């Protein structure tokens, strides 16, 4: 008996996802081993005696051949055990559970800013192509792309936090509120709402505004540019001319006919953009002392903390694969031909 089509698609996608993640692990593992950094240094420091170093090397499995190291890691990873981080001495899974919600919260806020402002700006740029709204969109896009996010973040802190006091400072929350709400989702905005603690919610929100806006500007620049490009292509189509000749309102021509046709590529762009943000922005997280995934992976990589790097990479890969699958599932919603 033939399997239903949906099951076939699911099996095919899951197999592709597994192959992608396996490939990612292999590449990351090899790169990690090629790094000119001795992982034992991070574990026991520079001054440990030779027997302590040998003991640590054996405990970390570094005395085994590479293929065996990878095999052992893979067998553990399949069981959900990503090992222990050398740098934090915690299980990698616990570390990721701690840092990923911070990145998720920041990336989601940044993506919302990009989405709510970038897409309309891109549409406006295309509709008024060559006129001042278009120039404005392009300038904002240029700034978002070209100004270093590190500088932008520091300037934002200097003006809106240090001088004006409009927003919270670095970190996810004022230190006094740390632990004030039980961590359920790990996202402070959600956890504070669940706990009904408005003070913590407002404090967390004040801390989120600036990093999310800084990262959101980058997202806005990307989305507005892509939306503008897609819309220009659609608005030059003959069916748009035909719609206008039919006497349809400009609002309907732009938002229903032209915009409706760019939804499929736009969803892909948004999914990939969101995926990039969920990797964690190392510079934004550094400037705003935001304890997220990007900083965690980078710091781990520089110490050759391979369990942490591999665990983090796997999460990032899974996020990308998941978002791609999600975008694919949305295609039929926006495009009847894909149903």
């Amino acid at each position, binding site marked *: 008996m033939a399997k239903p089509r949906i099951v076939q698609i699911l099996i095919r996608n899951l197999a592709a996802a597994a192959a992608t993640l396996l490939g990612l692990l292999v590449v990351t593992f090899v790169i990690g081993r090629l790094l000119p950094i001795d992982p034992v240094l991070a574990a026991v*420091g520079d001054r440990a005696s030779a027997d*302590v170093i040998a003991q640590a090397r054996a405990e970390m499995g570094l005395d085994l051949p590479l293929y065996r190291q990878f095999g052992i890691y893979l067998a553990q990873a399949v069981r959900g055990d990503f090992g222990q981080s050398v740098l934090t001495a*915690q299980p990698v899974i616990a570390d990721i559970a701690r840092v990923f919600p911070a990145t998720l919260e920041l990336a989601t806020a940044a993506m919302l800013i990009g989405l709510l402002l970038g897409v309309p700006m891109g549409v406006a740029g295309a509709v008024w192509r060559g006129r001042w709204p278009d120039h404005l969109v392009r300038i904002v896009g240029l700034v978002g792309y070209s100004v270093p996010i590190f500088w932008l973040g520091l300037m934002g802190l200097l003006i809106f*936090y240090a001088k*004006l006091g409009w927003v919270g400072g670095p970190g996810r929350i004022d230190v006094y509120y740390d632990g004030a709400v039980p961590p359920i989702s790990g996202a402070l905005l959600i956890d504070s709402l669940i706990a009904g603690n408005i003070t913590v*919610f407002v404090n967390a*929100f004040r801390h989120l505004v600036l990093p999310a806006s800084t990262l959101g500007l980058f997202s806005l620049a990307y989305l507005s540019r892509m939306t503008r490009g897609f819309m220009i292509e659609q608005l030059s189509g003959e069916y748009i001319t035909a719609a206008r000749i039919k006497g349809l309102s400009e609002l309907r021509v732009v938002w229903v006919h032209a915009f409706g046709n760019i939804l499929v590529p736009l969803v892909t762009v948004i999914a990939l953009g969101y995926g990039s943000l969920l990797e964690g922005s190392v510079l934004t997280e550094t400037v705003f002392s935001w304890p997220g995934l990007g900083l965690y992976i980078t710091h781990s990589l*520089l*110490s050759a903390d391979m369990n942490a790097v591999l665990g983090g990479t796997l999460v990032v890969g899974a996020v990308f694969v998941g978002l791609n699958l999600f975008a694919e599932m949305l295609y039929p919603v926006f495009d009847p031909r894909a149903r």
Partner: protein
Amino acid sequence: MESLFRRACRLNRRAFLRGGLGALAGSLLPVSALAGVPSDLFVMAFALDDVISLDPAELFEFTGAEIAANIYDRILYFDSSDVQKIVGGVAESWDVSDDGRTFRFGIRSGMRFHSGNDVTAEDAAYSLQRLVLLNKAPAFIFTQFGFTAQNVRDRIRAADPQTLVIETGQVFAPSFLYACLTAACASVVDKKTAEAHAENGDFGNRWLRTHSAASGPFSLRIWKPSELIILDRFDNYWRGEPAMRSVFIRHIAEPGVQRLLIERGDIDVARNLNPDQVVAIKDKPELRPDYARKGSLYYLGLNQKNAHLRIPEVRKALKYLVDYDGITSTILRGTAEIHQTVIPAGYLGALDERPFSLNPGEAKRLLAAAGLEGGFSVTIDVRNTRPDLDVAQSLQASFAQVGIALRIIQGDGKQVLTKYRARHHDIYLGRWGPDYQDPHSNAQAFASNPDNSDAGEVKTLAWRNAWDIPELTKMTDAAIHERDRAARIADYEAIQRRELDDSPFVILYQEVELAVERADVRGFVLGPSFDTVYYRGVTKV
């Protein structure tokens, strides 16, 4: 279905926008009224990313040692104003037998752990035993006295609840053992609490990495790696209850951000500002810089595997090619003092001799004597952080004056260190801080190399620079067994003079730590080593 979904999305979007805009409006109100740290809380910004463990038998990083110093009590301490003077900690009295092999320590009575358990000699003995038995990074500080997994329970023991006995197999200078008992690894752990959390015979190591079982002025409430540490005061602390209810130490890696925080009053102390930033805030009366000389030395290691650097005249010439004054006055600006011997100022036997200054003429003469009038090319491995890069550029400029082409190779800290430990460098710009307050810590690093072969297991700095020194190694080893103080000082002076004259080490300067405090903060002790920074006396006026 589709229309319902779309309507739901629209509703949610509206609700989100309404709620979001409301929250945004509320949150953007000026907060000057909220700025400032409450008077019974102490908040500090610090780069915390090197903390790996808070177990005294395992921690060996600067920041971790500082945190532990505020959680645990050590068996002995050294006086912060005179590091050669030993004062009591958990032990209030101590003596050594006539044969110099048996040390007895009287445990201070009335001390309690945070758990409420009494502090006894059994806890002190257990703490040192687990250090040796766990054999983690700091274990060598005590295994160098001959303690092994086989003998440590016999040689370090509690004679009675108030008496700790330590028997060393050989005769050692008492000051050497006492200095080691002031190290972070000699912190006293609550045996009952640690054993209650032990797994598979690990003496509670796994649990103690992130928890505390101590008797110090603060207990550990939270440690979130590379994010936050929160300490709560211990009301029954034997030296008196700390004024601060809690200490919050937040990981802020970026110095510019630390500056914004302290200027705004959202932290009490910023620990990682750079000298330029301190110059920029000097006119702000609400802020106060605090300086403390540390034991760390910055130095150049000249690899003796390099054919040019192996020539004694070249080694000496390079010592005349450092702009010591220029580097300390324009790059380091108060965060370093010129120091040219391998034992830091303040330590037993430290020499205050500075024979070298920038002198390209003398360097040229020495190079000519070595047959290298035209100079040569050489590389320097440097961490890609400031001030190391600035110092390397200064060296590049001064070396060029005599035709030496210095190529700077930048790298991440652990990458540079890996290369250094493999002896693959030409010149290495590094930093070395003593592990304990005794001159042997540095003498062993700079003047001991028992096996100069590539397979050598003891990777001292002398080994890393392939400096084969059998006689100096013997001299360094002999100095720790010298019981006569004056003779021991003479030993270290001789070692330092030999180093000045001939070694492949160009000692540049001694580090001065900088912290910036809010003016209302009093009693924050920035001690002479990285594990003598104390929060217990902090008050706010």
